Structure formats: structure tokens, C-alpha cells
């Protein structure tokens, strides 16, 4: 594993010069953000897999979660680990790159090459830090639409993503109903709950309490609030799992010792596991990006723009929906997903809804869940037939 200093350099390098395709939009094509700022220049770093058909009808946008990135199905340039969704995306996988042209962009505000707080502000020649404008999920989606324009793709066959990625997918359906034929929002919600805002605030306070955060100016001052970010990650990671899964995996097992030590070392395996999660996370993630992206999720509330009526946001939508939740996900519980289903029914939308039984909590969407894969295969096959995509006429 890379040492702290090396990995810091590696992460910065990915922010400035990512191992990805990159598109730059200059001052002539600014992105108008929800906060009112006209943002330019804008850089978007993205990966693609598979081949775009001549009629450009087979494009699938994968949207990533809070701590994900564009490296869906290739080895990660910093960690060297397989892509975060290589169980779902690839040749012969449910999102089959032999059939579909898959695009995934690093989100606006991220730290893997798309413009974010760690990017260099061309006006000052220094990283934006907290001068970067606060972005929203809708801003992310607008920037993705700019990427599609750049690629010459008018309509997505499908947009799919989990958690914060699911929020983007829902926003796609609301903002661009005519540009997305089908959507698969997984383990998500139409608005961030008070409890989830609370968890995010704990994470942000942990980052900001680290003296190395330097009021957000750590890149300029040559420090890195690793401890704060690691604590934020540790707290958040608990919310991605479930009591049952933690018990099954760790129980009260001790870490490399026969008995408790009457001290504050990591006596328990779960402590050691969480510390490891925190430490490896800071090698690939930027603390300020964590603040911005959690904030974007906090601000997410689709119904807010429709007098509190979620159904109004989807009225008359031509898009096909497949909503997925997991029984043990207490961060984005089934009930929140069901509210989306109710709203879609009320709006007359074509909607499928599966709840997958698993004890693996919120993170289940990233894991090997055959029933999830079956549902997504079936939904995509059916949508592809309805869309008349080549090679789907005889799909079983």
C-alpha cells in the first residue's frame, strides 16, 4: 500500500491529471449552478466501456455514490483494486458492455478529475478549496447532460446508480424525462432524511475538527486532514452495513489477542476493521470533496420544487422506472424507496419495484446479490425490446 505522503500525491494527481478521458468546457459554455454561480471552466473526467451504436441509442449512464468514482469496471488507478461495480458492469454482466455503451463520469465536486474543491482555480492558479461553489445533485446531472451533448448522445437508454448515484438517476428522470428511456435508482430516496443529514454533519465536523484541515486550505498549506476524514469514513461506514452483518462478520471477536487489554487499542476486530476502512479511504479521497458531496446529498429533495408533491415531479413521464431496495438497508430503507413507487404510480409512470432480501445493509447494492442482478437483467432486456435496440429482439 502507498504511504500517506505518496498516496496524497497520487490523489492530487488524479484530481489534476486523471487516468480517464477528460472533456473541458470553457468560459463560453458555463454551467449555471443552483446556487446562482455561473461556473467555468468545467472539467469532466469520465470512463466509457463498450461501443456506441451508430444510432447512439445504446448509451447507459452509470452514476456513482458518495465515495465512488468513474472507475466502474476497470482497476482503480490509485488502489489497483477492481472497479467498484465490476460485478454489475462488463461483458456478459447485467449491464452488458457487449450490448451497451456505458459511461460513468466523476461527479461535479468530486476529486478524481472532474472539477471540485481540489481543482486548480484558473483565476488564482491555486486549488479552490472552500471557494468552490456549493453544488447540488441537479448540478451534477446538468454537468452529465453537458457530457452527453459533447458525446453526441441525445437520449440515454438507461441511467443506473445506487445511493447518491440513485439520487442522480431520479434527478435525470425529473430534469430530462425525454432524454432518458429508463432509469434504475437503487437504494436511494427522493429526499435526504433528517437522520441522514445528521450522519453527514458528524462526518463534516470530524473533518473540520482536524487541525490539519486549516479552514479548508490544507492543500495550500501542505497538510492533509487525514484523521478527521478517516473518522468521518468510519462513522459513515457503519451506516452502510447492518447490525446483523456486523455480528455475523465480527461478533465480539478480538483482534490478534487472547483477551481484552484494558486499554484503547483496537481490541475488537470491528475496531480494527473500521480503522482500516478509514485509513485506506484517505489515500484516495479529498476531505473537502467529502464536505461538498455530503452537502449535495443533504440538499436533495425532489418534491421541494413541486409544492411537496413528489408525484407532480413525475407527472406524464415517459421514462420506465425500476426501483430497488434492500431489506436490511437502514440508511435508505425500503420505505423511502416505496414512497418513490407510490409517487410514480400516482403519476401514471411505468414502474417496477423489487425489494431484495439480504442482511448486508446499504452496501448490498455493490455486492454479489443474484436476485438484484436477475431483476436488472430482466428490466433492461424488456426495456431494450421496447426501445428496439439491435440484438434484443430474441432476448430470452
Amino acid at each position, binding site marked *: 500500500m502507498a504511504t500517506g505522503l505518496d498516496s496524497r500525491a497520487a490523489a492530487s494527481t488524479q484530481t489534476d491529471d486523471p487516468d480517464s478521458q477528460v472533456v473541458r468546457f470553457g468560459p463560453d459554455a458555463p454551467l449555471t449552478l443552483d446556487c446562482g454561480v455561473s461556473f467555468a471552466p468545467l472539467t469532466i473526467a469520465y470512463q466509457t466501456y463498450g461501443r456506441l451504436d451508430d444510432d447512439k441509442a445504446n448509451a447507459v449512464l452509470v452514476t456513482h455514490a458518495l465515495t465512488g468514482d468513474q472507475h466502474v469496471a476497470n482497476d482503480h488507478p490509485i488502489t489497483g483494486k477492481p472497479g467498484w461495480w465490476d460485478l454489475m458492469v462488463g461483458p456478459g454482466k447485467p449491464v452488458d458492455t457487449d450490448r451497451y455503451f456505458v459511461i460513468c463520469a466523476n461527479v461535479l465536486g468530486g476529486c478524481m478529475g472532474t472539477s471540485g474543491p481540489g481543482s486548480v482555480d484558473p483565476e488564482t492558479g491555486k486549488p479552490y478549496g472552500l471557494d468552490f461553489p456549493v453544488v447540488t445533485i441537479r448540478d451534477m446531472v446538468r454537468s452529465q447532460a453537458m457530457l452527453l451533448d459533447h458525446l453526441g448522445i441525445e437520449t440515454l437508454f438507461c441511467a443506473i446508480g445506487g445511493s447518491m448515484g440513485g439520487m442522480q438517476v431520479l434527478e435525470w428522470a425529473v430534469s430530462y424525462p425525454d432524454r432518458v428511456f429508463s432509469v434504475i435508482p437503487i437504494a436511494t430516496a427522493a429526499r435526504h432524511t433528517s437522520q441522514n443529514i445528521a450522519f453527514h454533519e458528524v462526518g463534516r465536523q470530524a473533518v473540520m475538527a482536524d487541525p490539519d484541515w486549516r479552514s479548508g486550505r490544507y492543500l495550500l498549506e501542505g497538510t492533509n486532514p487525514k484523521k478527521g476524514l478517516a473518522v468521518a469514513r468510519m462513522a459513515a461506514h457503519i451506516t452502510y452495513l447492518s447490525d446483523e452483518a456486523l455480528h455475523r462478520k465480527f461478533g465480539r471477536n478480538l483482534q490478534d489477542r487472547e483477551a481484552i487489554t484494558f486499554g484503547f487499542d483496537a481490541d475488537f476486530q470491528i475496531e480494527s476493521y473500521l480503522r482500516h476502512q478509514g485509513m485506506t479511504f484517505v489515500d484516495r479521497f479529498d476531505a473537502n470533496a467529502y464536505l461538498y458531496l455530503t452537502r449535495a446529498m443533504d440538499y436533495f429533495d425532489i418534491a421541494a420544487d413541486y409544492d411537496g408533491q413528489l408525484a407532480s415531479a413525475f407527472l406524464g413521464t415517459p421514462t*420506465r422506472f*425500476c*426501483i430497488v431496495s434492500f431489506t436490511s438497508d437502514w440508511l435508505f430503507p425500503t420505505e423511502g424507496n*416505496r414512497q418513490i*413507487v*407510490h409517487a410514480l*404510480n*400516482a403519476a*401514471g409512470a*411505468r*414502474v*417496477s*419495484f*423489487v*425489494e*431484495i*432480501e439480504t442482511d448486508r445493509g446499504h452496501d448490498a447494492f455493490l455486492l454479489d446479490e443474484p*436476485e438484484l442482478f*436477475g*431483476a436488472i*437483467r*430482466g*428490466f433492461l*432486456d*424488456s*426495456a431494450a*425490446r421496447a426501445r428496439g435496440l439491435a440484438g434484443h429482439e430474441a432476448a430470452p
Partner: protein
Amino acid sequence: MTVQSPRYNDMAAGSQTGRIDLLLVAGMIEPGSRVLDVGCEDGALLQILEDRYDIDGRGIELSQRNVNECVAKGLAVVQGDADRDLTDYPDNAFDYVILSQTVQATRNPRAVVEEILRIGRRGIVSFPNFGHWRMRWQLMTRGRMPVTEHLPMSWYDTPNIHFCTIRDFVMMAEEIGARIERTVALDARGNRLDGNASLRRLNLYGEQAIFVLARNGA
């Protein structure tokens, strides 16, 4: 895989193509319609409708396992409860709303039928007829709740909690102001009884019934 307790035993229906009532229901629907199948089980009817009749079909099903199976087949099905979740849907959202062997398993059949006539221009309701002579005979001779080939479960196991007869259903339709547009009764072998037969005869010899309903004035 857990075995779902069937509301109606289709293995006994004696047809190569599956449940004969599903095919009959499918034939009552105009091609190109928007259809909601309430209690769609494994999606057999929706599949027939989408494959053969070019229909925009949706389903609601109580069992999550059935729902997941439907979605894996590419059907637009959501997990939901006929008694609770029909209120979500706006008025006249569908051309047809179907209750196929479902109404007798709901907690409040009358309210459910009223709901399907609110959200659909027409409702199609099929159910096992408890007025069939074999049911009457069993109850009379044995003094016990009837158990048949199609309804093989004991009273304490069955998901069917609100059995009715054809005559009961006709009277309820009258009470809620629904117009009966068609009545079809099938005998034990799945053959249609003469449509001109009296209600008394349908109620005695029909093992199951299919009604097409519309709101009065609609």
C-alpha cells in the same frame, strides 16, 4: 424457495396453456389498452397481455418473491397490497383493472372493487363461486368447509378470506352502483356455461365466474 400458498390451484385447471380464466380475461381486453393487474402473482396474465395483445400492463402483487420474479421477466410490477395501495392511483388511470382470483383474498372486497372502478374505466373480476353445487353439497353432507381440487386448502390455511357466490357478487355490484357488462361462468372442466342461462343456473353450475364491470354512467 418458499412455496406461496396459491389463491387458486391452476395445476387443476386442466389446460395446456395454463389457467383458462387468464386466457378468457385476456380475450376480454381490447388490444393497445392500459391494464393494471391487481394481485398478478407470477405475472402470467401480464405476460400473455404484453406478448399477444400489445398492452401496456402493470401489476401489483403482495408477495415480494413473486414481484421479483415478475420484474426479472421484464414486467412492470410493484410490491403492494390491494387493500391499501390502490388509493395511490389517480382516477381513470387505466382502461382495465383486473382482479384475477384476488378479490376473495382481500380484507375489504367491496372497497377494493370500488377502487378498481375508480382507477379503471372497466374492472374485470374473477373468483371461485362458493354457490357451486359441489360446495353446497359438501357443506350440507359433511358439515365442513368445502375443499376442492381448485381450492385445496383448509379453512385455517387458505389466503381466501372472503368467499362469495355469483349471486352475492351480483348483489354487491348493484349496491356499489356498478354496471355488469358481461358475466361468464366456467364449469369444473373450464367450459363456459351458456351465457343466456339464468343467474340461478350460473350460480349452481359455475365453478368460477368472470365479471366485466363498469361504473354506472361511465
